[in-house]
């Protein structure tokens, strides 16, 4: 069951606690929404590659695995980020195809320059891989990046960085973040419905009732 679907179902099951009237009024829309989301989730993150060759995919996977590495918690590799990027380049990221097509050979050329005789990024040790990536990493602090206004002319590595973040942290229902790996790492629960208390500081906090009493005193 997808998370989206379980969330919708939870809304229905929790109806009495929340708003029975609301659920009743929206029954058909909810069904439609869960069916739609279920279909979308099933069609997302396809098992076969759509844009990359298997060789290219291995290279991109290796790059993403240095951007968000695997340690005692999952990294970009476990989150299937390469599949997210691969699918993305045939859908929302069509404009970035050229960046990947031209950027990967440049990256591989850099591998050969720094480590003569080696042709593939994925053939390097993690330390060597980091050395290659550092050679692309501008030392200027990145300006505040925005998912909205991504500038067109940026280098291959910056593009892969951004796509890796998106593929690692997107809602798992939308084709990345396999098994919620990214959300486990950052401590975001998979649910989309929560109840107070939410965190450490609002536990046992009296809240507005206390504020109201104080307001009454004044």
């Amino acid at each position: 069951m997808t998370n989206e679907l379980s969330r919708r179902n939870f809304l229905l099951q929790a109806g009495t606690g929340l708003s029975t009237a609301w659920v009743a009024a929206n029954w058909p829309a909810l069904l439609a929404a869960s069916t739609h989301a279920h279909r979308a989730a099933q069609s997302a993150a396809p098992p076969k590659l759509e844009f990359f060759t298997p060789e290219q995919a291995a290279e991109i996977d290796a790059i993403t695995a240095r951007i968000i590495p695997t340690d005692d918690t999952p990294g970009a590799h476990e989150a299937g980020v390469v599949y997210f990027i691969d699918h993305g380049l045939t859908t929302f990221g069509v404009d970035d195809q050229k960046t990947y097509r031209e950027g990967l050979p440049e990256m591989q050329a850099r591998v050969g320059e720094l480590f003569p005789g080696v042709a593939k990024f994925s053939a390097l040790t993690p330390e060597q891989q980091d050395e290659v990536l550092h050679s692309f990493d501008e030392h200027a602090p990145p300006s505040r990046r925005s998912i909205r206004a991504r500038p067109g002319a940026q280098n291959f590595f910056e593009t892969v960085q951004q796509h890796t973040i998106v593929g690692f942290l997107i809602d798992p229902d939308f084709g990345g973040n396999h098994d919620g790996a990214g959300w486990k790492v950052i401590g975001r629960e998979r649910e989309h419905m929560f109840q107070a208390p939410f965190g450490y500081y609002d536990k046992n906090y009296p809240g507005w009732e206390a504020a109201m009493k104080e307001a009454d005193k004044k």
Partner: protein
Amino acid sequence: MMVDQPKYKTSDEVDFVIIGSGAAGGILAKELSTNGFRVVVLEQGPYLTEADFTHNEIEILAQDKLTNHPKLQPTSVRKTPDEKAKPQRALVYGRCVGGTSVHFTANFWRFHEIDFIERSKIGSIAGTGLTDWPITYADLEPYYTKVEWEIGVSGLAGASPFDPPRSKPYPMPPLPVKSSGVIFERAAKKLGWNPFPAPMAILSQPRPGRSACVNCGFCLSFGCEVGAKSSSLATAIRAAEKTGRCEIRPNSYVHRIETDANGRATGATYFDDKRNIHLQKAKAVVVCANGAETPRLLLLSANKQFPNGLANSSGLVGKYLMFNSGGTVTALYEHPLNDYKGYCVSRVLHDFYELDAQKVGFYGGGGLDARFDFTPITFGFNGLPPGTPSWGKDFKSALAHNFSRTMEIFCHGTSLPVENNSFSLDPDLKDAWGLPALRLTYKDHPDDLKLTNWLFERAHELHEAAGAQKKWSFPAREQQFGVHLLGTCRLGNDPKTSVINPDHRTHDIKNLFLCDGSSLVTSGRGQPTMTIMALAFRAADRITALAKRGELGA
């Protein structure tokens, strides 16, 4: 829901055509159709409902599913009128039925008394068009109350000593406090300030057909999937449809208001989704297309009789644009706040709403709020402190540690009305329909930047008092991009210095009305939607009275 709607022919001269279905357009549609008039609402965006909304950050943030699209609707930007504008994204607004009220944060402050009379109180400010409103807070108060009760606003009356008078309490209690709100409230009290539960246009209790907030954490930029956010879509549009006299016509991009030989508006010309052109006839036209598209439409409608655009005898259409000043001070705390859960803002303070210019050395005022408005992806892009590596082991460990422990204080403030700051038509750039694109000219008044930096200092003090482990902000910079689109067709009594009169009627054309962010005379302290909705309720009363007296007829 659309089955209930009448289908008017474009050749039917309906009573009102309303252009735009957002915060103002939705309410005018509801009020005018309830008052017995036949109404067509032309909305350029699609008709989406709760079932269409998702938390898909790519669709919403990268593909602009709910908002104006930078490829179809390019814009250009410059700082001053002597520069040539460069193509650049200038603004974001809601482009769907319900407009920007669908994706907004729902932070919902009333303006205070001072916002309407500031010019009289402090005098003129050189280089600005700061002026009083032709109406006062007292004129608008009944309509603020009406907004709160009709759409559903959560809050606690009397909790802020700076609140303006109100005739009725909020219809429902505040939403549950978040950890960011607790941190904010404790520290602010320690500093002797007066934090209070944030008034939010989000339901803390269910209403018929709408759920109370389920704390999903995707308010800003997203449509509410459970109808808890009190958008025009979830409230006024549905009420308008129930009258049986209002047709909401989505995918209808109006690019011209027609006028006749007598200088009266006769209807609106628009592209449908197949780019066929239609003319919807109407006895009167109400433009609620937002503070950028409303002036653009008036300018696009220039004709022989009105060569500078409609309603533009003052030359002020598009001018005195105000974005609101502001920015965030972000901080990291020891324990998890989990502020990704829940709506954005749970505590606010207004101690700095009205600063003494003599003391601080600049004009202005503002409010602070405690919030977390990152999504997981935008946090990955922008949520970490400066100096954090942008990839690798340390990047990952910072993401893992900080996401649940970060909060922001947003500093919201005034913008002064400066005549050069404007939306106009770009002479070269065209949109996908071949129409002149919006050109932004904007350079913040120096006082606006001083104010932001001053408020940042207060926010740093607050984080300090709260025991933040780390806090950071970036110095206020001149804005080149806006989401609060205010002041571009201002209200006023004098046709030489304003575009619309206190009835929201254009000074120049008797049956042409404007109501949205463009109507505002001053910027307030940062949350314009409540005031836009209150103005819309008031405008509906005024327009209804004029129509009933036969003052809109030929």
